[in-house]
């Protein structure tokens, strides 16, 4: 597919929620290509618990928008098998927290087949999954597991933070010949029953467009401190930057994809500011924030004046509001961390 320059969000006035943008890309790919289909629990009549397939059943019917039994190993492995035959399935793991019931298919089959076959077989599928907390769904339904998926080789890992990106990244994901894990944050989807913050709802051009993997987006330029983040926390970081405006000039980088990771954009910024705050919603240790600090230390140690990370501490995610709020990195946590590296 020839790579054309994506039309920017400034080319349209039409605003969409993130879920609408994501579905628009899926619909368009399904219209273009008979070999694209969607499998998941409650994706047909329900339209996806988090609206990830809303409206698709009506257009494509149960054969292409398939409800499946609650047997993730079976149907995600099924998607792998169909993809190995050249189809382009999209399989949905309802919450990323359920990965443990089907991780072998993901890690040992989906992600490794290209390599284990020496490139003779590819697995062009997308694994969509809902991530994130903020609504008191407790220890088994609030994780992001960004680090877990990014650590294991053979999958590309995508985490959109806006409707504009959600659409473009989904087009790229479906067209990509490799397995892509597409992690959408529930709080960003624009669900009627879970109000999204300002930010994810953006102008979205009607035509299909791709956003290339491995290109971080500098959401806000700044001279003093670099904040690197993704997903929901892009918006929190921007809010923190706003709050600090005048006091600290904060640069905010949205990674958009974890695999591949755009180290260069991060390093360029860190070389400029000398101060790095890595922010994510995953567990603190052995994850994304550690990797970011490590890459900064590897690539820009001489310029590095101070580092800090803001993440969920190394405990399961608690239920009660004051407890979840304590572990969930908030705007104030980012503000504090930025001040601390100054």
């Amino acid at each position, binding site marked *: 597919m020839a790579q054309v320059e994506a039309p920017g969000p400034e080319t349209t006035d039409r605003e969409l929620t993130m879920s609408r943008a994501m579905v628009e890309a899926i619909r368009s790919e399904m219209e273009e290509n008979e070999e694209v289909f969607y499998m998941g*629990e*409650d994706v*047909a*009549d*329900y339209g996806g*618990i988090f609206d990830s397939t809303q409206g698709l059943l009506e257009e494509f019917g149960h054969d292409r928008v398939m*409800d*499946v*039994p*609650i*047997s993730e*190993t*079976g149907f995600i492995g099924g998607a792998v098998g169909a993809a190995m035959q050249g189809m382009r399935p999209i399989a949905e793991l309802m919450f990323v*927290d*359920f990965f*443990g*019931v089907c991780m072998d298919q993901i890690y040992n089959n989906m992600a490794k087949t290209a390599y284990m076959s020496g490139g003779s077989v590819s697995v062009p599928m997308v694994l969509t999954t809902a991530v994130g907390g*903020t*609504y*008191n*769904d*407790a*220890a*088994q*339904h609030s994780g992001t597991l960004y680090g877990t998926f990014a650590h294991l080789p053979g999958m590309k890992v995508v985490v959109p933070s806006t409707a504009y990106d959600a659409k473009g990244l989904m087009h790229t994901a479906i067209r990509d010949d490799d397995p892509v894990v597409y992690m959408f944050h529930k709080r960003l989807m624009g669900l*009627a*029953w*879970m*109000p999204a913050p300002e930010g994810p709802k953006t102008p979205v051009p009607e035509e299909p467009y791709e956003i290339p993997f491995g290109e971080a987006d500098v959401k806000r330029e700044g001279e003093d401190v670099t904040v690197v983040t993704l997903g929901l926390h892009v918006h929190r970081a921007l809010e923190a930057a706003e709050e600090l405006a005048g006091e600290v000039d904060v640069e905010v980088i949205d990674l958009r994809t974890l695999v591949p990771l755009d180290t260069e954009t991060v390093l360029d910024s860190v070389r400029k500011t000398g*101060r790095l705050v890595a922010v994510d919603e995953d567990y*603190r*240790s052995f994850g994304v924030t550690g990797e970011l600090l490590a890459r900064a230390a590897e690539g820009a140690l001489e310029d590095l*004046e*101070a*580092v*800090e990370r*803001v*993440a969920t*501490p*190394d*405990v*399961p995610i*608690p*239920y*009660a*509001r*004051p*407890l*979840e*709020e*304590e*572990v969930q*990195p908030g705007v104030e*946590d980012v503000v*504090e*961390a930025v*001040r*601390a*590296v100054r």
Partner: protein
Amino acid sequence: MPSVSELQEMYEQAVTARRYEERLQEEYLEGKQPAFDISAGPIPGELHLAAGHEAAAVGVCQHLRDSDVVTAPHRPHHVAIAKGVDLRRMTAEIFGRRTGLSKGKGGHMHLYDPEVNFACSGIIAQGCPPAVGAALAAKKRNTDDVAVAYLGEGAISQGAFLESLNLAGLHDLPVVFVVEDNDWAISMPKGRVTDVDDGSRRADGFAVHGDRVDVDDAVAVYEAAGEAVGRARNGNGPTLLEVQVHRRMGHFMGDPESYRPEADAERAEALDSIPRLEERLRAHGVEDDEIEGIRERANDRVEDAIVWAKDQPQPDPEEAYEDAFTQQPEGWPERPEVAATDGGER
């Protein structure tokens, strides 16, 4: 056949459970006014209520004692009540309070009461292996305790359940798998996810006893469960027992149920097990005012628990850092104490 006093006990548990769910629904939704926001109100997060499932809870648990183990899935309240979980502390947990069963850390899908050996998991069918493990412990320790794993009919296609059937059968473990068939797995009707109408047939391939109760009736469940629990207690191995129940509310609170035919909801309404249990009581000569007395007692108990719970303190944010380990390592977990890192002055 249950004795009259057993019938009365079951009825009391059933109406307690029903009332409990109705009151939680009120409390939950009240906090979501004017616009439904899942994270608002006194009960945040998801809430899966079990109104219509009572027969499965009371008919089975009537045969259990405190030392028997029960694992429940995401829809646990009715089973917890029938198993004798502390209602005040359970309610406090659901309201996220510090005196809750889990100090507010667990929430409604993660209720643990070691006093009566009750536990849950919110991941489909994942309570089955631990129930098998509890049964294995009972066998190793030579007690005659049994374990019961509850799951929904949507869970009978999940590997964890199927592997558990094999393990339980292989070692003749004292465990009963109780499938609550409410016809729906969220929006998916049973026929869309398996070819087998009678879920207890899953047992066939593992040489495990299978049985199904086709009517939503506490006494019929009592009978079948009596056999199953007896079999387990006497060392004669596991049973897979499927029980027809009905989902009277949405899958979770806030579920628009637009996928559900009106007629199906009406049918569920009509097949309710509680009036049937009342009739049984009447047939056994229990007077209306006695029945009314039981209901009032149940309502009072529920009210007491809710009032008590709402009066309990919130947990302190700092408590979030405790309890990941029973033997907590020193200096762990690292707290996000933000401090300058650009000097050695940390």
